[in-house]
C-alpha cells in the first residue's frame, strides 16, 4: 500500500491539491463501510482516539497523503458527515443525531489535523 501511495505521489502533487477532498472522501467511505455502527458507538462511548487506533503503517500512509497537500482546511466535521452521508448513511446519522457522537467526531478531526501538521 505504501508503494501505491508513493507511486501516486506525483499524481497527487499535480492533481491532489484540487481533488484532495475527493480522495480523502473515497478513503473514508471505504474505511467506514467496513466498520459496524456498534464499533463506532463503542469508540464514541469510550472516547477512543481514532488516530491512535490506526496502525503505524496506516498513519504513515495518511501523512504521505497529507504531505502532498498545501492545506487541510476543508477537513471538518461537517465535511466528514456530508462526505459519508450517501455511502454510509447509518454512520452519518449517528454523528448527526447523537450529540455525544458529534462531539467525539469534532475531537477526532482536531486530533487528526494536529497529527498531520495542520492543527
Amino acid at each position, binding site marked *: *500500500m505504501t508503494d*501505491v*501511495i508513493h507511486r*501516486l505521489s506525483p499524481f497527487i502533487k499535480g*492533481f*491532489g491539491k484540487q*481533488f*484532495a477532498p*475527493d*480522495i*480523502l*472522501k*473515497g*478513503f*473514508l*467511505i*471505504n*474505511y467506514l*463501510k*467496513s*466498520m*459496524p*455502527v*456498534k*464499533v*463506532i*458507538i463503542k469508540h*464514541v*462511548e469510550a472516547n477512543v482516539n481514532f488516530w491512535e487506533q490506526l*496502525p503505524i*503503517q*496506516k498513519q504513515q*500512509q495518511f501523512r504521505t*497523503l497529507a504531505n502532498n497537500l498545501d492545506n487541510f482546511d476543508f477537513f471538518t466535521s461537517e465535511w466528514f*458527515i456530508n462526505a459519508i*452521508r450517501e455511502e454510509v*448513511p*447509518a*454512520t*452519518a*446519522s*449517528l454523528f*448527526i*443525531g*447523537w*450529540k*455525544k*457522537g458529534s462531539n467525539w467526531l469534532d475531537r477526532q478531526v482536531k486530533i487528526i489535523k494536529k497529527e498531520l501538521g495542520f492543527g
Partner: protein
Amino acid sequence: MSVEDVYASKVINPTDPSVNKDQKKQTDSEYWDERAKTERAKREYEEESAMRTKSKDQAINPPEPPFQFKGSINMGDIDMQRDAREAKEATEAENARRDKELKEEREKREVVEKEKHQLELAGIQKDMNQKMESLEKTILAGNANQKSITTQIGEIQELAGVLGFQRPDPTLAGSLDVSTRIELIKLQNENARAEREFKREMRREEREYQRLMRKDDDDRHFQQGEADRQAKRDGMFAKAPEMVGRAIASGMMEGGGAGAKQKPQSYHLEAAAGAGGEAECPYCGSDIAIGPTARSAVCPNPECGAKLPIKRVVEETGEDDRRNS
C-alpha cells in the same frame, strides 16, 4: 726632292734574261710537277665552280625531302557589317514569310466563319419558317373552331337583350363610359393580384418562421445534449479522485484493517434505554443509527432529513434492542 717625270715610261718589272735562262734549265720532273700542279688547280677550280653552281641551284630549288605534308587553311574573310546585313535581310525575309502565312490563315478562317455563320442563319431561318408554318396552321385551325370577337359580342348583346338588360346611356349621370370601366376592371385586377401577392408573402414568411423555430429547437436540443454529455464527462473526472481514495482505502483494509463487515441489525426508533443500533427511516428507508443516549435520530438522506424521536422502553428480557413490527 726629285721630281718624277710622269711622261716617261716607267719600268716596273724589269726582265732579267738571266732569270729566263735559269728557267730554261728546268728539269722534266719540275716540269711535270708544274703541270700536275696546274692540272690539280684546274680540277679544284672546276670542282669549286661546280659546287658553287650546285649551291646556287639548291638555294633556288632546294631538294625535296623524302616525306612532305602539304595543306592549307583558308580562314576566309570576316566582315561583320556584311554578316549583320545578311542576318537582317534573312530576318526580314522570315518575318515577311510569316506575315504572309498569318494573313493567309486569317483569310481562311474568315471564310470558314462566314460560311459557318451563313449555315447558322440558314438553320435559324429554316427553323423559324417551320415554326411560322406550324403557328399559322395552329391559328387557322383555332379560328376555324372559334367565333370571331365581333360575333361573340353580338351574341352576348343579343342574349342580354333577351334577358332584359339594356345598354346604359352614356349621356346619363352615373353611367360609366368604356374607358372608365376598363380602368375600374384594371384596378380590380390589380387589387386582386396585390391581395394574392400579400397572401403568398404571408405564407412564405410563416414557413420561414416555422423553419427558424425548428432550427432553434434543434440547436437547443443539440446544446442540451452537449451540456449533458459534458456534465457526464465532468462527473466521471470528478469521480476519479474518489475512486483513487477508495482504492487506497481498500489496499489498507487488505493489509490488516478493521476486519470483516458485520451484517447490520435493523432497529426501529423504539429502543431500549441505553441501547444503540441501526434502524430504517420510515419515510425514505435510509439506514439510520441511533446512539445509546440519543433522544432523536436524523435521517441522513438530504432529500428526507426527517428528525425522528427515539422512545426508550424498559426491556425485561434484557435485550438491548427490539424489533418494532
